[in-house]
């Protein structure tokens, strides 16, 4: 098969996984719609905190309410897109710890897409829908800003997904670390939902390297605020870099994986 044929073949495989995944998500349409609506409301309620904050204070080190709206929109889009399309990454650590990877080894494909696209979390749709409200109404962005917003937010989603894959791979090295992976996930979410422009140099250095929250929150907002192509390209480069790193970490972890004999369940 030619290189182009192989790429098409892989894309067709991913598309087939996505189709099945999304069909599963809408198997209970009322639950899916309720989850999405509740998440939409949830994000708006969270924004009230910042409305109250900026009713008392004029700015937060140069950021105003509109910047916070941009931030919440970008993070909501990134998180929503990640869990809606690749909700399986929330279960990755448990699957590794339980020996559930065996099932995926029986397939003539790389196990990572199958694992990530094994589940869709419908509340992600509410996150994605709320992003438009944050951007266009509360954040003061125009329709013309949408391509840039979607580009940096989708890149942020890849960085978020890649970081989660890396933290969820911890059980390869530390079998009892599934709970720790969940706490790391909570920590990452916590950091990205709050403005990162308040931190000093050392903390920012960490946020741009080992715990790349800056590419999910701070830098995408700055890119849109300043209409900066350079900052947008840095976010896109981070998406490629952290995506590749996640695949590498997963493959290194696979070498240490010991079977859970779950393949017997296939019989």
């Amino acid at each position, binding site marked *: 098969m030619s290189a182009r044929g192989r790429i098409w073949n892989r894309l067709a495989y991913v598309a087939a996984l996505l189709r099945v995944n999304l069909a599963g998500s809408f198997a209970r349409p009322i639950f899916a719609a309720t989850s999405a609506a509740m998440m939409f409301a949830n994000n708006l309620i969270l924004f009230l*905190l910042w409305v109250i904050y900026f009713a008392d*204070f*004029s700015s937060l*080190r140069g950021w105003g309410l509109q910047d916070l709206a941009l931030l919440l929109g970008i993070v909501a889009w990134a998180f929503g897109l990640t869990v809606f399309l690749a909700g399986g990454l929330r279960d990755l650590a448990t699957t590794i710890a339980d020996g559930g990877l065996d099932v995926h080894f029986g397939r003539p494909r790389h196990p990572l897409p199958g694992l990530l696209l094994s589940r869709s979390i419908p*509340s992600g749709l509410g996150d994605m829908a709320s992003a438009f409200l944050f951007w266009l109404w509360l954040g003061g962005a125009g329709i013309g800003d949408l391509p840039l917003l979607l580009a940096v937010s989708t890149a942020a989603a890849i960085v978020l997904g890649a970081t989660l894959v890396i933290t969820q791979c911890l059980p390869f090295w530390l079998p009892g670390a599934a709970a720790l992976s969940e706490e790391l996930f909570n920590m990452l979410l916590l950091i990205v939902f*709050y403005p990162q422009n308040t*931190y000093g140099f050392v903390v920012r250095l960490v946020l741009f390297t080992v715990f790349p929250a800056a590419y999910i929150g701070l830098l995408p907002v700055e890119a849109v605020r300043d209409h900066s192509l350079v900052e947008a390209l840095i976010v896109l480069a981070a998406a490629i870099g952290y995506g590749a790193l996640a695949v590498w970490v997963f493959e290194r972890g696979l070498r240490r994986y010991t079977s859970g004999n779950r393949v017997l369940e296939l019989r």
Partner: protein
Amino acid sequence: MPRVDPGAPRAWATMKALPAFIVMGQRRAAADRAGSVGLLALYWLILMIFWALWQATPLHEVHRAGLDATRLFWYMAVTECVILAVGFPYRAVEKDIRTGEIAAALMRPLPYAAAILAEWTGAAGYRLALLGTGGIAAGFWATGTVAIPLTVAPALLLSMIIATVLALLCQLQLGYTAAWVGTPAPLFWIWQKLTFVLGGLMIPLTLYPPPFDRLAMASPFAAMVFAPASFLLDGAAPTMIATFALQLFWLAVIGLATLLVARAAAARFAEQGI
């Protein structure tokens, strides 16, 4: 047809088992060492995020004497301590309902609601002690002081315990809603964010602009989050008495509501199965 537990106390004799459930909850929480370390790390991270945030905030703009980043740090140390100590226990009830395990629990002489609440109280008590100690250490490290006057410390502790029980009662109700909605997670998200906003998790309710301040103070969330932390902003005796009265009022209301929800869920299980 088996007799179904309505969730209300059946006999005081069976209530003697409650301390055992409290101890069990405390021991289970203590045994989860990785979880405890992760929780403590999360708490410290939150405190450091907000320490940076309050230091970057132009606090002089609100013209409140004595309101500085240090005081707001300690305010948040208390509010977050309560929120994190409670955790997400509603998931246990949801799981019991989803798996049908609640059927066996309902057959026991001790009411299911009382037993699980006692277990949660033990676990939350352990986490309150852990986070309280960790919060004082982190606060001293960050701010160079412990901004909790000794005179208000006993009242603060009691108020934090009442706030925790209030939040646990709400979580029990949320867990029971699985009987009707299947998955209570979406309801929980809304409840949690209302706790953040109307409870004054980040900003004291006294700094809220109208009409948010009145709305928040009239809600039960103020009794769960703002009430204990308010002692660090105003430790005057009349204010503390009013705060305790507010907490006890909501304890009675939410306690009664929990009883009614437990009974309704039990009736539903009896009529339609689990």
